[in-house]
């Protein structure tokens, strides 16, 4: 068991969902079994998947939404609904996480586009708790927020999948149904814009 604890046991401060994620993520055979059971309608197995990947999906959706927590929550909920219906079509269970975060990004992108069309949502400047970040991080965060506000939901989805989820162009292309070259070109164009926005060109 755990080493370096006092009084026998180390009581982790990690939330329970992280404990579950560790187990599911480190054992690919278990992950495959869990996905198969969930796809067959096993509620408990599906809950284990929710437990393991909800946080990753929310973080990606949050970036795509430009920092709108409500929109991110709605997108992730919609993504779980899609996942539940289409889990059986996932051919490679090892690709579960990329698939789930891309579904969340897509739902957030679509919700964001609808909001833009209706023009009823103002993307407000985030208020950053000065105590929550170092001054240098604070400046960087504000720069990114400003830059994000100028991006479309599609561009933010690309940014989130590449820089938050860590997917490369080939993976994003496969998940989006587009050639990797197209994704690379869009990323390059996006980066050029961001360099300008963030005054780093």
């Amino acid at each position: 068991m755990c080493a370096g604890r006092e009084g026998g046991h180390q009581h982790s401060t990690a939330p329970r969902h992280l404990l579950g994620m560790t187990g599911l993520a480190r054992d690919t055979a278990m992950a495959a079994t869990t996905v198969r059971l969930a796809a067959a309608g096993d509620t408990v197995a599906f809950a284990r998947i929710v437990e393991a990947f909800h946080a990753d999906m929310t973080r990606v959706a949050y970036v795509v939404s430009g920092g709108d927590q409500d929109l991110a929550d709605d997108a992730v909920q919609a993504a779980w609904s899609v996942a539940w219906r289409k889990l059986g079509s996932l051919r490679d269970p090892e690709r579960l996480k990329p698939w789930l975060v891309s579904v969340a990004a897509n739902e957030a992108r679509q919700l964001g586009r609808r909001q833009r069309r209706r023009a009823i949502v103002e993307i407000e400047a985030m208020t950053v708790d000065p105590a929550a970040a170092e001054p240098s991080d604070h400046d960087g965060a504000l720069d990114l927020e400003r830059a994000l506000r100028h991006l479309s939901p599609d561009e933010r989805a690309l940014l989130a999948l590449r820089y938050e989820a860590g997917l490369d162009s080939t993976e994003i292309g496969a998940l989006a149904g587009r050639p990797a070259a197209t994704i690379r070109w869009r990323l390059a164009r996006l980066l050029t814009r961001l360099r300008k926005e963030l005054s780093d060109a």
Partner: protein
Amino acid sequence: MPELDPFDARLTAAVHAFANRAETGVDATAVAERTIRFRPRRTFAWLAAPLPVPAWIILVAGLLLTALLGATMIGRAWRDDRLSIVPPQSPSPATTATAEIDLAGVRAHALPQPATCPAGADPDVPGPAHRLWPAAGTTSMAFDRQSGKIVAVVSFGDGSQTWTFDVCSNTWAQLGAGPNAWMPTLVYDADSDRTVALDLTGRPSAISGRVAVWSYDLEADRWLAGTPSPVLTRTRASAAGPDAPTYGFAAAYHDPSGLVVVYDGTRAWAYDVEVDAWSAVQWEEDWVRPSYVTPVTLAYDPVRDRFVLNVKGMILAEAYGGTGNRTMTLDPATGGDVISRPGLGFFCGWASELCGTVFDRTTGRTVWTDGGTHVEAWDPALDTYGAWETLYSVVGSGATASPDWCEGSRPAADSLNGRIVCRGAAGSVAAFTPATRQWRWLLAPQD
């Protein structure tokens, strides 16, 4: 990901920092249940059918008008129909006593990659005949995932031997003396890479209520005696008195915490092999658990994060319906969420030495066997842990014609090959594959 240039690195850090502001806490079970209950609104498939252009115009105009009226009348009602994120429950109260532990608050070490069979090995080919094999004796087994071998303790009443069975070459190998146990339960502690043997002290002549423990280092071929457990008692009212010592326990490895959990009929205890310490598992008192029962087998289902427990004997709580065998699921975090069903009625020996339960990672099911004549799987898909399903039974196929797959040995789950392995008569070893529901000899009975 390729190496990042300075701007890429800065952007990655900024995106991570931004994403980390998201509130990500959630009650996964509630979200899953709501998701599953949620049904997307039906779409009108006939809209896709080819219609003349004027009909489309009328149809679209009608739909727009309906939508306008609907939106006016219903307003924002659709929002109430959405799934809602359920906030996480309040965290469990912190452990207050050093002797208690919250299983949900302890995390196991990261596990190294499990062993794989060497190139060229065929685990389906029976091992060579006329090799050394253990003499007849009660055999307890556990699968050591890091070595890819089953560790077996063969007990003879006045001593025991340690053996390994290689599941890739299907051969026995004898090691040193076993622990000084009468009929131990073996559990492989994966994150400590130790096989743990547990047995009631003083058996069979006296009942002390303490569980003796030994840990085995396979590389060094060395058993190390640990500290016996506190006295395990049937704390709730029992025929033998309120504090009578237990005469049965069941044990399983709890993967998330990396602890060996022992259930004594009323309470659970956790043994940490690395520091040789016992703790009482902190479970909520509100949950009514049956008492005055003898645990027979215990397994941990890591897919559903539940213990699957088989008990026999009188059950006092009315909620559990009088006497008889029961199968229950227990939430490791609370001891609750008890789902109780009639258990298996097969004979397991007076010390439960004939039966065993293991979790099969290939099928995601808890599999029970009574020594080879019956194999049952606890099916969680039926009514959320609803019933045992018979995978194999000699009944109907003729017991006399059935080979003696297992001879009083508790099985081990060979996760390397996705099968349940037990020791049979005359040095033989048999394997049951839950996915195909078939027994096969890994080592045929010797002459």
